[in-house]
Structures are given as C-alpha cells and as structure tokens.
C-alpha cells in the first residue's frame, strides 16, 4: 500500500451533477499518481472544529494527464453541505490515497461491476482502469442501480469508455425496473461459463449482502467496498471495525474499504 499524503488540494471544479449530488475536481498530483480504484480520501470539510472529523469520500475519477482527481458525493449532512459550498480556486485539506482498493482482474477474467446509488462513484474509476487493461469489449459489464432517473450519474462516462452498461431504477424511470442485483441474477443466468468471472460491488449494505449471497452461491470471487463511521481513517484509532468471518474485527479504513466477500460478516 502506498504512503498517504496530506495535501491542500486546489478545487478545480465543484458542480451539481444530479439533485444533491456533486462532482468535485481536485488538483493533487502527488495523490493522483498513487491512487488505485476503490481507495478514498479523508476530507476536512471545515476549518473549525465543527464538524470535527474528516469525511471519507471515494476517489471516483483520475485524469492521469492533468493530475486531477474527481470525487462524487451526495449531500447528506453538515460535512457534505460545507463541501458543496466550496468554490473553485479555494483549497481543501485532504489525506490520501487511503485504504486497500479493488484488486484488478487478471487478463483472462471477465468482470461484472455493480454499483448502487452514490456507490457508483468508485465504480467509474475501476471500470476505466479495467477497460484500459482489457481491450476486449466483453470483458467488463457494469450494472448500475439508482432510486430514480433523476439521481442517475456516470452512465455517459462509462459508455464513452466503451463499457457495456446496464441500468436499473427502483421506480423504472430509467432502464430496468428493480435492483441492480436483479440484473446480476439475470446476467449470471445468461452466461454459461462463469468460471472466469470476478464481481466487484459498491453500494448500500443490503445490496452488498445480496451480492455476497449470489456470488457465494456460484463460487464467483467477489470484492465489496464497505462503509463504516471513521475517525482517523488511517488505522490508528480502531474506530471503523467490521466483523470478520474469522475471529474479531477488520478495519474498514486500512484492511478495506474493499474486502473479499468471504473475509467479512455482513449480517
């Protein structure tokens, strides 16, 4: 794992891409160079002690040419509210890249990537990275789930990469009506040879649980990106634990946020 860096990154852009969902572009070349898909930034949203703690946000996009990095976040509380008010040109205190990201698939593998809601953010960088390595169009399929059409994002980006993208919405306003895990079920039924498949997922906990069950049932390796409340974000406080299937707990910030499905207990 690469050494994290504290950076006062310049905000290049910060704009609403869907209701209450923002994309912020940051200039932090020393972090960009080291970042892997699935890793996150620990962001200080305020200069004061309110809110006190940093907020973990996934790295969603990397532009290797400009050295810029994109994050996509949903405004849900005080921290993200402050973040969305920051203007381009100002700076934000970030630590990154943090955590263990998604292990990239071997060349002969076929990847199925599932993203739900704001969990689609890290999926974008993952899909791009895999697409760069695998020229074969059929080697990646991305399955996205959103509550409704209005909240959807990232689809154009994925399509521009030439990645096969299938969308589901809870209310059926865009694509399939239902959950992205329904799409996963269908996908696996349609594909006979699943022995070389690998599954990646990021989204709400119930979605990850379902992915774990589906993948486990078919013996497909699956990598899941988890969330837990964090303080330090670097493995020092033991505050972000998730139950391990072995003894004890794992740290989401350091052992994860991406875990092999068999490592963690999601119930």
């Amino acid at each position: 794992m690469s050494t994290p860096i504290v950076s006062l990154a310049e905000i290049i852009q910060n704009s609403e891409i869907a209701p209450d969902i923002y994309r912020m572009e940051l200039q932090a070349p020393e972090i960009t160079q080291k970042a892997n898909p699935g890793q996150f930034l620990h962001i200080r949203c305020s200069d004061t002690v309110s809110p006190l703690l940093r907020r973990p946000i996934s790295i969603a996009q990397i532009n290797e040419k400009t050295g810029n990095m994109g994050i996509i976040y949903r405004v849900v509380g005080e921290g993200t509210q402050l973040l969305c008010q920051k203007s381009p040109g100002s700076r934000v205190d970030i630590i990154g890249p943090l955590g263990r990201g998604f292990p990239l698939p071997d060349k002969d593998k076929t990847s199925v990537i599932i993203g739900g809601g704001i969990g689609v953010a890290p999926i974008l960088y993952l899909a791009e990275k895999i697409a760069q390595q695998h020229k074969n169009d059929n080697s990646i399929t991305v399955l996205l789930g959103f509550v409704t059409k209005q909240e959807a994002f990232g689809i154009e980006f994925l399509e521009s990469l030439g990645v096969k993208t299938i969308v589901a919405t809870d209310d059926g306003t865009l694509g399939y009506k239902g959950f992205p895990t329904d799409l996963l079920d269908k996908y696996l039924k349609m594909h006979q040879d699943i022995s070389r498949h690998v599954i990646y997922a990021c989204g709400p906990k119930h979605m990850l649980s379902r992915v774990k069950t589906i993948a486990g049932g078919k013996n497909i390796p699956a990598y899941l990106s988890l969330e837990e409340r964090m303080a330090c974000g670097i493995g020092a406080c033991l505050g972000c634990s998730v139950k391990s299937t072995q003894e004890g707990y794992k740290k989401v910030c350091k052992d994860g946020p991406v875990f092999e499905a068999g490592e963690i207990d999601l119930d």
Partner: protein
Amino acid sequence: MNIDMDISVDIAGIVMKNPIMVASGTFGFGREYSDFYDINKLGALVTKGLTLLPKHGNPPPRTYETPAGMLNSVGLENPGVEKFIEKEWPHLSKLTTPIIANIDGDTVEDYQKIAKWLSTLENLAALEVNISCPNVEKGGLAFGQDPESAFQVIKAVREATNLPIIAKLSPNVTHIQTIAKATESAGADAISLINTLLGMAIDIHNHQPIFRRTFAGLSGPAVKPVALRMVWEVYEAVSVPIIAMGGITTWQDAAEFILAGASAVAVGTANFINPRAPIEIIEGLKTYLCLKEQNLQQLIGSAHGGRHLTY
C-alpha cells in the same frame, strides 16, 4: 527567532526533548503516523492500551461524532502483551523517543502480571496504568472511581516494577483530588488525566442507544474545559508531575494546560483531524516561550499564582 530553544522535561526519569506526547489509543503503536512525520520528534509516545490476553474489542459502531468532539467505544481492542512484544516492540524499541506502555487489567493481578512482563523490555520508558477505561465490562473505570481500589492497583504495579509509573485517571468521579492523592501515596511517579468522559447518543429513528454498550467515551475539544479544571485541581492536591490531555488541539491549548499545572501534555483526538498536530504544537510552544522569554519550568502551574479560589 530562536526555535532551537530547550523545552525538554524530565518526568519521573522519563527524559523528553519536549513536553508533547501522544495519547494512548489515538496513535496505535506508532506505525500509521510515521507516514506523516518523523515520530522521533515527539516528546514521548504512549501505546494503545494493552491487556494480558488479546481483546477483540466492541462490535460496531465504535465512533460517533458530537459537537466539537467524538464518542468512542473501541473496547480496548489490542493484541495482548505477548503479541505486542513479538510484533510491535521490535519497531518501537528502535525509536529514539521514549515509549510508554499503557496497561489495563480486569483484576489487580492482571495489572501486576502485565507490569512484570513489560519490565523485561529494555528501553521501555514507563508504564501508564489505565484505571479509567469506560469501554470495558470488567476492571478499567471501576478501579479509577474508588480511591481504595485505585490505591490497590497502583500499589500492586509498584511492587511489580521498577519502571516509572503514571496513573491515568478518569474524569468520571466526584472528587478527583482524592483519587489523585490515593495513587500518589500508592507510589505513582506521575499522574495523567483525563481519560474520556462518559457520554452517550441515541438514534432518534430506531429509539435505541447508538452504542451496544450504551455509554461511550467523549473526547476532543468539547472536553477541554473539564480536563483543564481537573488538572488544576490535581495540581493543588499532589506534588508528582502531571501529564495533561483532553481536547488539546493547538499550542494555545497546550500552554493553558501547562499554566494550570501540567509538566507535559498529550495530543489525542486532534491527531485524527490533523495528523501533524503534535509537531505544530511543539513548534508553537517553542515560539510562545521564546516570545515570553520564559522557560518551560517557569510556566508550569504559574496560573495558580497564589489565588486559590476554587469553587
């Protein structure tokens, strides 16, 4: 400006190049923060709390943010003394900054066994005896809330080791001076305070406490005034040196605690917000002393200045 000025302190034989330490449980075993600066610049490093046997800690959630503070219910997750010596001590012992082991037991005998075991380590600077952890079932806080038990634990550790002993006190008591005096008379060479304040939070949607153990420990800037008051009180009650902690985030905070009577201070929760906080505090304190043309010793407790109007 002369920022090479001497701010070293000697606390019960622990020789520190500056009075800024890092607080137990907020700095792991020193590995993580080494990514951000040379941790040998710290006055001293206090390890995560160690128990005789490994502890898995409490189920999640373990942290919860509060106004200018945070609650934690980590539950002393640690590898146990044996694994600590095998896995962590080799790298810790290579550091030049003094290493202080924070220890915790379910029983008086536990404390004694851990103290004996750790006393075999060459270069370990001191033991900080935690009689104040609010997040465990047995021992911990219970020892720190009663002067007689506090006395027993410190006395037992005193008999088990020649290392300097720091008694770490809980703020969750009515008379902090009584507890402080008990640990001093049992043989503590220094006193550190405060550990976290008992607090809680409730989920208003499911009508249940956030934490499985209901109560958790409050730390961060929110607790600073309480910590400062307690350091003040303890300074007036004992003659052993005091190591202060509780919400210290800036060099100004550190200066306040020193004026209240602390010979050294520890940075805890602030590490999470600004990984370089201890280093910035060291620099700030040097500049402050330089401008005041005073040395550290002159500053310690100088806010008491004869005006002893407490309550």
